[in-house]
């Protein structure tokens, strides 16, 4: 069984590769459709001698034919190298930047994810158990409204209320900058502050996480509400639920078993939701000045720093791939019917 699972994980992991290749290809060619390049983005309006421009472009490898650039990067990528930044600054390993930004996004998305799943399950179960009542209707309206909340708008409202008006919570950044005793190690600030036993820092980090993860989490919870409710309604009408009751199993337990069954399709949704979560993270990060991958991509796009954008996309693809792998494994573990 365990060996089977290991194998299954391996095969699923291999499937991430074509996905990365496809996305790399798409992004590579899209980026190069229009004129302009990272060097120009930096020197901008400056009166730089043309020879020097040429020299800089050569340094960045932009004078080579497209296909050479494509395969060069691909070759590097296969060796786990995401290339170097092409501008502002030039020549830094893209991976070092991503290492700086990715943990922020991971922290945000994990929290937002937790918020969305917990909220989604709570509201969904409530709706299903009270099917057909006012509560059910309320939950369905909640699901639609949450789903259609526009992140920048909603985030701003929260910032305004809890920051500007009430002064309860910080509105931007990851940690109070005046806490100088804190030194990131992994970049996952929660983990870091716990490792260092720096409770002031931990408090500050958690405080800073609340608004962004609530914003993103609430918006994404709508989809779960809907799915959990509908699945649970379906499951509750199945024979085995009645069979449990017919055997005298207490209602609470029956609900629990039903929920486990209803949860299986929800698990499959999770991988997908995570991708949507990452998309939403761009808007959330912009709104809350969160130094994560979303703001990184936006920054780098304005410089058209090809390597950084490609690198970020690859990392995102990898991240999404790994998440869906984890989801699949959870799914396989949860559902004995899955063969691996």
């Amino acid at each position, binding site marked *: 069984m365990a060996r089977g699972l290991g194998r299954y994980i391996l095969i699923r992991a291999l499937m991430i590769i*074509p*996905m990365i290749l*496809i*996305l790399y290809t*798409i*992004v590579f060619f*899209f*980026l190069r*459709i*229009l004129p302009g390049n990272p060097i120009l983005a930096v020197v901008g309006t400056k009166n730089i001698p043309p020879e020097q421009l040429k020299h800089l472009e050569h340094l960045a490898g932009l004078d080579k034919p497209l296909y050479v650039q494509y395969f060069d990067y691909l070759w590097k990528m296969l060796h786990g190298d995401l290339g170097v930044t092409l501008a502002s600054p030039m020549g830094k390993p893209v991976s070092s930047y991503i290492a700086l930004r990715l943990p922020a996004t991971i922290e945000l998305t994990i929290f937002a994810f937790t918020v969305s799943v917990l909220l989604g399950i709570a509201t969904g179960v409530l709706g299903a158990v009270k099917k057909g009542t006012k509560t059910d209707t309320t939950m*369905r309206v909640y699901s*639609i*409204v949450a*789903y*259609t*909340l*526009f*992140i*920048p*708008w909603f985030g*701003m409202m929260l910032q*305004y209320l809890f920051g*500007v008006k009430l002064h309860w919570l910080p509105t931007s950044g990851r940690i109070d900058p005046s806490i100088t005793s804190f030194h990131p190690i992994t970049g996952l600030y929660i983990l870091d502050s716990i490792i260092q036993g720096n409770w002031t820092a931990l408090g500050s980090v958690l405080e800073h996480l609340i608004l962004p993860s609530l914003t993103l989490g609430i918006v994404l919870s709508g989809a779960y509400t*809907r799915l959990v409710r509908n699945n649970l309604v379906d499951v509750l009408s199945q024979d085995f639920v009645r069979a449990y009751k017919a055997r005298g199993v207490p209602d609470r337990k029956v609900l629990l078993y039903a929920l486990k069954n209803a949860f299986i399709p929800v698990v499959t949704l999770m*991988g*997908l939701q995570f*991708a*949507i*979560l*990452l*998309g*939403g*993270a*761009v*808007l959330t990060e*912009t709104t809350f000045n969160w130094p994560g991958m*979303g703001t990184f*991509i*936006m920054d780098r*796009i304005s410089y058209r720093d090809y390597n950084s*954008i490609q690198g970020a*996309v690859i990392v*995102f*693809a990898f991240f*999404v*791939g790994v998440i*869906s792998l984890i989801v699949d494994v959870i799914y396989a573990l949860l559902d004995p019917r899955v063969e691996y």
Partner: protein
Amino acid sequence: MMVIEGFVKLLRERKPGRGLFIFGFSIVLIVILMAIFAPWIAPHNPTEISADVFQPPSWKHPMGTNNLGQDVFSRIVWGSRVILYVVAVATTLSIAIGVPLGLLSGYRGGKIDRVLSMVMDSIYSFPSLILAIVIAVVLGPSPINTAVAISFVYVPTYFRMVRGQTLSLKGQLFVEAARALGVKDWETMKKYILPNVLPTVLVVFTLSVADAILTEAGLSFLGLSVTPPTPDWGYDLRVGQPFLLDGYWWLAFFPGVMIMLLAMGFAMIGEAINERLSLGTR
């Protein structure tokens, strides 16, 4: 035709989803009417700059004026055109590409199917907003470019749905019956499979339109959709948002609410149709 019939049914029959449908449909209808009759509804020229900046809502300016003294209400009214246009073009494009490809891939199977599925799945599982951003940046800000960027990320949605449905329909006896009757492949796809896929396309359509609206708004919020002075909700929200802190709430409030209402309208229609469809099968 069938769609209209279905709509009429949804409106008339007292079944769950009717309330949702009516609510959603009214919102969408109002916005569509707003777009069509914009010149008559809007009291002012939406791009006209005046010295009356930051006027709060009043009779003259029902939603106030913005930082350039433009009438917010008029901009909302005209802005409906842009968002509807972008979303309409985007969804048309993605349906026009996604549905036939999905049919073909699902029905034919084999190598084409494997390659197409892999490409589509890759795009699908990637955060769509990020991809749309990259494409939109590259193409430059204009409604048609935004539509292309959005359609690109929604093609896989239709593709996957249609492919999946086609696969399951292919296993249904009536498709086999068609084969037994000697119906040619393309005709089987057209007459037997496509009509059965369409209702789900409709549901996916309404839901993904809701999504596309938010994506459009997201792109224009990031400044990637239109160039001023074209009125556009997402862009106006972006412009208006900082002024919220100055107490000029109407600049950001109305565009934000409109974006969400319109998305909600479509989501509600989708939900209602979905519910009705699943009632039919239960």
